[in-house]
């Protein structure tokens, strides 16, 4: 009998066991209920000690047949389902779907509604980026930035509660305009929020971007080159973080974005290389500042008038045809492809979700990184699993 202790770990008993220790990579399942996966997602990591040799992302834990539902409920009934895919930026989802339906209908939305849509979309962008930056701190082990971010996000949610009654799934932006006009004094409270937020923004900047440990953990980690970002169809802060100057709000303007003045933030390698985890956070941080600029212009320019097109009623029957409209969601390009056969139910509603494309490149950033970087890389992609799986 082989009495060497190593024999106990031998899967083929009786075989001659060499005294040399055989090594093999350790396969670890990160998720589906791992705290750093931002929802129910599974990453299969291949690790050589603390160093990652590879990674594979497994999706589908939050699949809720959103697109299939689009083929069985009528055009307007589908609107609440759009809230649910990127639940941190539901206003933008409503907007993307509404624009696609309006493109089928061929209606021009009243001007006041267009401004209100931009205001809620940009407020939602601030809230979403705050959450992204805050939870990124959590991924790196700092708890406090999240709570500081939630404090301001709370103010945005209160504004949304006042305008549409909901805090997370709004269904406020609808085909033909918006659900209702802003209540009295709402625009003034948006302005008040912006004044306060400009001050607290600097707090986040010092808490996060000036923090030595934060820089050490994110600079030069998970570097996504510009070519890679384009090849994988990345969009949003992920693409701009890699130094590509592309923003649908400016390059394919929808609503009234062409009347507004704002800069497109790109990664510049502020603390490390262009396209590293720090740059993606950098883009998100400064996009909030740009959103504040956009909001201030909107508050100045917003006209009076109707907020819902009178021809768009409860039942929508677009003429047969198809449309694709893409908008700049906080996480990137959110596209809706809608096909109508003239009935009140869509033939096809296809969603091009930014998190899905952004996440697919993440596993290629991991080889060579440390185990602790896996959380940093996944966090910097800022996925919402509801959107990748739909």
């Amino acid at each position, binding site marked *: 009998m082989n009495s060497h202790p190593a024999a106990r770990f031998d899967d083929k008993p009786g075989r001659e066991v060499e005294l040399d220790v055989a090594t093999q990579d350790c396969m670890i399942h990160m998720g589906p209920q791992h*705290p750093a996966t931002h929802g129910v997602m599974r990453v299969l990591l291949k690790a050589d000690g603390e160093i990652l040799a590879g990674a594979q992302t497994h999706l589908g834990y939050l699949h809720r047949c959103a697109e299939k539902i689009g083929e069985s409920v009528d055009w307007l009934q589908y609107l609440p389902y759009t809230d649910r895919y990127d639940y941190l930026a539901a206003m933008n989802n409503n907007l993307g779907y509404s624009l696609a339906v309006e493109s089928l209908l061929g209606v021009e939305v009243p001007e006041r509604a267009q401004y209100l849509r931009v205001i809620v979309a940009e407020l939602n962008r601030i809230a979403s980026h705050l959450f992204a930056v805050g939870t990124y701190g959590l991924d790196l*082990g*700092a708890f*406090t930035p999240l709570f500081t971010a939630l404090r301001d996000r709370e103010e945005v949610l209160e504004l949304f509660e006042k305008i549409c009654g909901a805090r997370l799934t709004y269904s406020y932006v609808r085909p033909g305009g918006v659900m209702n006009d802003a209540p009295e004094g709402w625009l003034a409270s948006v302005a008040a929020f912006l004044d306060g937020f400009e001050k607290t923004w600097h707090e986040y900047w010092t808490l996060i971007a000036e923090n030595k*440990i934060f820089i050490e953990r994110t600079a030069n980690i998970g570097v996504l080159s510009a070519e890679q970002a384009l090849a994988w169809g990345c969009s949003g802060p992920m693409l701009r973080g890699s130094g590509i100057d592309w923003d649908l709000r400016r390059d394919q303007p929808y609503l009234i974005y062409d009347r507004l003045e704002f800069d497109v933030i790109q990664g510049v390698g502020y603390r490390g290389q262009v396209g590293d985890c720090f740059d993606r956070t950098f883009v998100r941080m400064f996009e909030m500042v740009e959103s504040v600029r956009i909001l201030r212009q909107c508050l100045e320019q917003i006209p009076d008038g109707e907020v819902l097109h009178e021809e768009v009623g409860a039942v929508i029957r677009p003429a047969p045809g198809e449309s694709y409209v893409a908008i700049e969601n906080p996480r990137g390009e959110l596209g809706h492809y809608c096909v109508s056969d003239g009935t009140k139910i869509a033939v096809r509603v296809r969603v091009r979700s930014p998190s899905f494309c952004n996440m697919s490149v993440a596993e290629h950033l991991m080889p060579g990184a*440390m*185990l602790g970087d896996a*959380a940093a890389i996944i966090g910097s992609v800022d996925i919402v699993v509801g959107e990748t799986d739909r």
Partner: protein
Amino acid sequence: MYELLLSTAIALAVVLAFITVAAMFFVYAERKVAGWIQHRVGPNRTGGFAGWAQSIADSIKLLLKEDLILRGADRRLFQLAPAVVMASAFALFVVLPFGPGLIVADVDLGVFLILAIASVTTIGVIMAGWGSYNKWSVYGAMREAAQVASYEIPLGLSLMPPILYFGTFSLKAATEAQTGSFGMGWYLFSDAFWIAIPSFLLFFVAALAENKRAPFDLPEAESELVAGFHTEYSGIRFSFFFLEEYAAMFVFSAVGAALWLGGWNFPGIHLLEPGSTLLLVLATASFVLKAFFLVFIMMWVRWTVPRLRIDQVMTLGYKYLTPLSMAMALIAAGWEYVKHLGAQA
């Protein structure tokens, strides 16, 4: 013989009660401090006033929870690990000088004993990680082993300056030496303050790493390793790891307080009659408050900074803290020699 056993048993019971109560208080304090730092309230319901009973309620909940052991786990290691961890934390309290005459065992090599026993905790953690039948736990255990092995050296060396200054390894003797003229002869304010301040900072950083406190909480990094070595633990066994963390925090803070911050000494201690009850109460309060203050700083750090990566932790330990603490020990020895020569001349 019988009397000795009885007195030992009483002393140990008192220490055990103190650890349990102190750890429960620290858990509550940690949550309050975290809430305060994060614009929250923290626990505020249980027990009425400011949620004071939250920790008690949590302890009862933990006691009542199912003690789960995975089928593939190494049962013996798994069951033994919390006991090893808890026993080592428990033993550390024995040499702490809480007040004049209030010390369980005045060991001549007190500081040495603390360093030696604190390392035993690591063995418990490795046992827990290995026995858990979970890869994340093994990672936690390996990180703990690497981290403690590299931070033992700066921790031990950073304790050398006060030891050289007082010429003793005994915490009680070191505390007594810091009474000075009116209770302020603390090492931090002594003629060697320029050695005391940097060595205290070194000690504090190394103690954070030794106790697995943020930013060095790699063995239980929740966003990377779920909960590290105690992922698979539940109920009372889990609470042992919890208790150990806070007990060890208190012990290292107490060592810092005893060697640098004057131990039980406070301004005006010379006015009180030696051996009086008032002196004993005030001195103990002074010692415990100083230790609490250092524990509070540890909590403050935890809720402020992100976590380092394992290679950065190792770099900090080997490339910066070890040489620095070695230099501090040499400088302290040189200073004592200079003083010795001056005294002879």
